[in-house]
C-alpha cells in the first residue's frame, strides 16, 4: 500500500477530530486489556513461558539461514514448493505465476499482514484476478476500500452502523427490508455471502503465524475458520510468510502458542490452530492439489545483526497496540502503513525507510506499557529511542524540536545553569497556574494542550524539593 507515514502528525490530528473513530476505539480500550490480564493470571507459568518464547526466537534468529534451508528441504520433501523473494515485487510476481498456471480467476484470502505489506490485492485486481478477503474484519475493510487499522482486528476502527451501511451498499441482491442492526445479523450475512466465494475460488491464499523447520509445516491461528475453508477448498494453497516466522520444532511452536492467544485476545487458545504440510496426499478425499510458500525477505535480513534484530521476534499478537495510549487516541490509520502502534513505530522505518516513517517512533509517551505486555519481551521503547537518535543524527528532526533539544542539551551539560533555569521556569509556571492547578493553553505547547491539559508545576523544581527532603531526613543532598 501507498505509505502515508510521513504525514503522521496530520493523520493523527484528523483522527482526534473523528467522532466515529473515537467511539470505535473505545472498544479497544475496554476490551483487550482486561482479557489479557485475566488470561495471564489464570496461567501461573505465563511469565516463564514468555522468557522461553523469547529464547526460542533468539536462538532461531541466530541460525536463521540454516533453519530456513532445513525448512525448505522439508517442504520440498512433502511435495510443496518454496518461492524465495527478496522484495515485494518478486513476491507479487511469484503469486501471479502460480495463479496464471492454474488459470485462476478468483482467489480467496485468509488474513495476512504480509499480503498487505506487498499490496497484493490491488496487484491481483489489476491482473484480472479477483481477491476475496474472507476474515470478517478484512472483508469489511476490503469493501470499504481501506487498509487495516490493527494487525489482529483489522476493522476495529469501524462501528456496527458503518458495517450495516456498507453491507446494504455492497450486498444489493439481498432484500432492502432485511434487519441488519445487530452484530449477529451482520455476521450471518457475511457467512452466507462468502460461502459461495469459498466454493468458487481457484486459489486460496493465507498467511502463516509460524513455519516449522522440523517438518516443513506452516501454521495459521484463527477464530473464524475462514483460513481453513480458504486453504482446503481450492486447487492450490499459497502461503505468504516472511523469513522470521520460522521456529525449529513442533515443541517450540507449542511454547509460543501458549503466549500468543493469551496476549492477543485473552483466549487460552484460538479456535483453530492449523498445521499444513504439503499438498493433499494421493488418497486424501479433499485438500488443495498444490502447496506453495512465498518466503519474503523485504528488508528483514538487513535487520539481523543490528540493534533492531529483537524486532524480528515479534509474533504479531497486537498486545503492544492494545495497551498503547497513543494508539488508543489516534487509531491505526494514523501510522500510515500496514503496522500500527508501538511495533509499527519500530518496524515501519526498518521496512520502508526512516525518510518515510521517521516520525512514527516519536508517537510514544514512553510509558513502557508495550514492553511490559509484549510476550516476546521486545524492548520497544528502547528501539524507538534508537530511531529517534538516528532521525536526529540524519537531521530529520524538525527545526523547532531541534532547537529545543539542542538548548536542553546545552543546559543539561551545565548543572548550575540548568538548576537556575529550571527553578526560574518552574516558579513562573507554578505561579501562573496556581489558581486551576493546570493549563489548557500554553505558548509553544499547543500540540500538547489541544487534547489534554498540562498540569501546573509545584512552583519549585524537583531538584530543589529533593535537596530539601534529603536535608530533613539527615542525608546528603
Amino acid at each position, binding site marked *: 500500500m501507498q505509505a502515508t507515514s510521513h504525514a503522521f502528525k496530520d493523520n493523527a490530528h484528523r483522527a482526534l477530530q473523528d467522532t466515529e473513530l473515537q467511539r470505535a476505539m473505545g472498544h479497544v480500550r475496554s476490551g483487550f486489556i482486561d482479557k489479557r490480564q485475566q488470561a495471564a493470571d489464570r496461567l501461573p507459568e505465563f511469565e516463564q513461558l514468555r522468557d522461553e518464547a523469547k529464547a526460542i526466537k533468539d536462538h532461531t534468529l541466530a541460525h536463521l539461514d540454516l533453519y530456513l534451508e*532445513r525448512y525448505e528441504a522439508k517442504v520440498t520433501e512433502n511435495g510443496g514448493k518454496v518461492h524465495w523473494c527478496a522484495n515485494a515485487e518478486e513476491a507479487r510476481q511469484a503469486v501471479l505465476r502460480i495463479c496464471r498456471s492454474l488459470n485462476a480467476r478468483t482467489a480467496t484470502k485468509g488474513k495476512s499482514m504480509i499480503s498487505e505489506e506487498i499490496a497484493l490485492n490491488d496487484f491481483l485486481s489489476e491482473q484480472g484476478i479477483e481477491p476475496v478477503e474472507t476474515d470478517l474484519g478484512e472483508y469489511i475493510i476490503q469493501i470499504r476500500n481501506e487498509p487495516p487499522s490493527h494487525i489482529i482486528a483489522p476493522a476495529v476502527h469501524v462501528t456496527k452502523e458503518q458495517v450495516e451501511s456498507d453491507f446494504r451498499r455492497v450486498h444489493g441482491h439481498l432484500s432492502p427490508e432485511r434487519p441488519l442492526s445487530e452484530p449477529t445479523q451482520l455476521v450471518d450475512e457475511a457467512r452466507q455471502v462468502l460461502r459461495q466465494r469459498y466454493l468458487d475460488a481457484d486459489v486460496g491464499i493465507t498467511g502463516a503465524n509460524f513455519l516449522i523447520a522440523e517438518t516443513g509445516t506452516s501454521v495459521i491461528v484463527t477464530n473464524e475458520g475462514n483460513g481453513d475453508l480458504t486453504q482446503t477448498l481450492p486447487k492450490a494453497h499459497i502461503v505468504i510468510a516472511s523469513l522470521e516466522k520460522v521456529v525449529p520444532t513442533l515443541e517450540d511452536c507449542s511454547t509460543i502458542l501458549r503466549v500468543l492467544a493469551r496476549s492477543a485476545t485473552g483466549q487460552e487458545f484460538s479456535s483453530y490452530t492449523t498445521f499444513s504440510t*504439503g499438498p493433499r496426499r494421493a488418497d486424501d*478425499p479433499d485438500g488443495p492439489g498444490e502447496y506453495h510458500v512465498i518466503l519474503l525477505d523485504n528488508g528483514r535480513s538487513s535487520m539481523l545483526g543490528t540493534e533492531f534484530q529483537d524486532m524480528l521476534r515479534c509474533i504479531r499478537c497486537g498486545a503492544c497496540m492494545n495497551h498503547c495510549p497513543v494508539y488508543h487516541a489516534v487509531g491505526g490509520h494514523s501510522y500510515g502503513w500496514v503496522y500500527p502502534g508501538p511495533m509499527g513505530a519500530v518496524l515501519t522505518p526498518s521496512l520502508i525507510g526512516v525518510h518515510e516513517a521517521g516520525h512514527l517512533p516519536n508517537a510514544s509517551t514512553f510509558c513502557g506499557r508495550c514492553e511490559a505486555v509484549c510476550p516476546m519481551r521486545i524492548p520497544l521503547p528502547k528501539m524507538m529511542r534508537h530511531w529517534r537518535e538516528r532521525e536526529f543524527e540524519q537531521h530529520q528532526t524538525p527545526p523547532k524540536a531541534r532547537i529545543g533539544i539542542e538548548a536542553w542539551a546545552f543546559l543539561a551539560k551545565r548543572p548550575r545553569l540548568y538548576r537556575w533555569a529550571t527553578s526560574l521556569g518552574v516558579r513562573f509556571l507554578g505561579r501562573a497556574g496556581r489558581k486551576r492547578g493546570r493549563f489548557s493553553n500554553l505558548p509553544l505547547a499547543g500540540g500538547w494542550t489541544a487534547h489534554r491539559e498540562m498540569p501546573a508545576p509545584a512552583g519549585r523544581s524537583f531538584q530543589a524539593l529533593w535537596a530539601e527532603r534529603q536535608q530533613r531526613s539527615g542525608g546528603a543532598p
Partner: protein
Amino acid sequence: MSARETVLGGLRRSLKRQPGDGAEAAVEARLRSRVRGTVPQRGQLSGEALLQLFVNQAEGVNATVTRVASSDDVPGAVADYLRQSNLPLQARLAPHPDLQALPWAEKVPMLELSEGRAAPEDRVSVTPAFAAVAETGTLVLHSGPQTPTTLNFLPETHVVVLRAGQVAGAYEEVWDRLREVYDGTMPRTVNMITGPSRTGDIEQKLELGAHGPRRLHIVLVEDGTEPA
C-alpha cells in the same frame, strides 16, 4: 543470482556466518532433541481429574460435551443431541472404521447417514478425533483417507467422537503420538480445534459461527481406557 541466493547470502552476511562456526551442529542438535518448554502444571494431571479439566475447558469455550459409558451408546447420544438442537436426523460421517463399527442402524434406525467429504448442503458432520488436549479443551484432528478435512469446517454442526484414552494433558504429548503413528511425517492437515467458530470483528462483541461450525459437540466415550 537467484532470489534464494540473494536472501540466504544476505542472512549469512548479517549473521557473520563462518565455515566451521559450529552453527550447523547446534541446529542439528536442536532439531533432534526436540526440547520441551515448560508444560503447565494443569496439563500434568491424570485420570478423572484430567478428563474433568478437558470437559471444563471445552465447555468454557462454548463446546458441549456428553459423556457416555461405551461406544455402543454413541449413536443414541448423537441422535439425542440432534433432537435437542432441533436439527434434522441426518449426518455426514467420516469414512473411518471406528465410526463404521458403531451400531447405528440397530440403535437409531431413523438417523439418516451418508459418508465421505462434506458437501456444501451438509448440515451435520460426525468425525473421530486423533487426540485431545486437556490444558485448553482442544481437539486434535487430521486429514487422511478416512478423515476428510472439509467435515471439520463446512457443516454448521460438528460432532466429534472422542475416547477417554485419547485425552492428553499437553500439546507435546500429541506431537509424540503423531510422530509415532506417522513415522515422523505430518499428515497434510492437523487441526487443533478449541470450541466452535467465533469472531469479535464487529465492535469486539463475541459471535459464534463466523465461517466454520456454529456448534461443536463432543461425545466422550469412557470405555475403560485411561486417559494418557
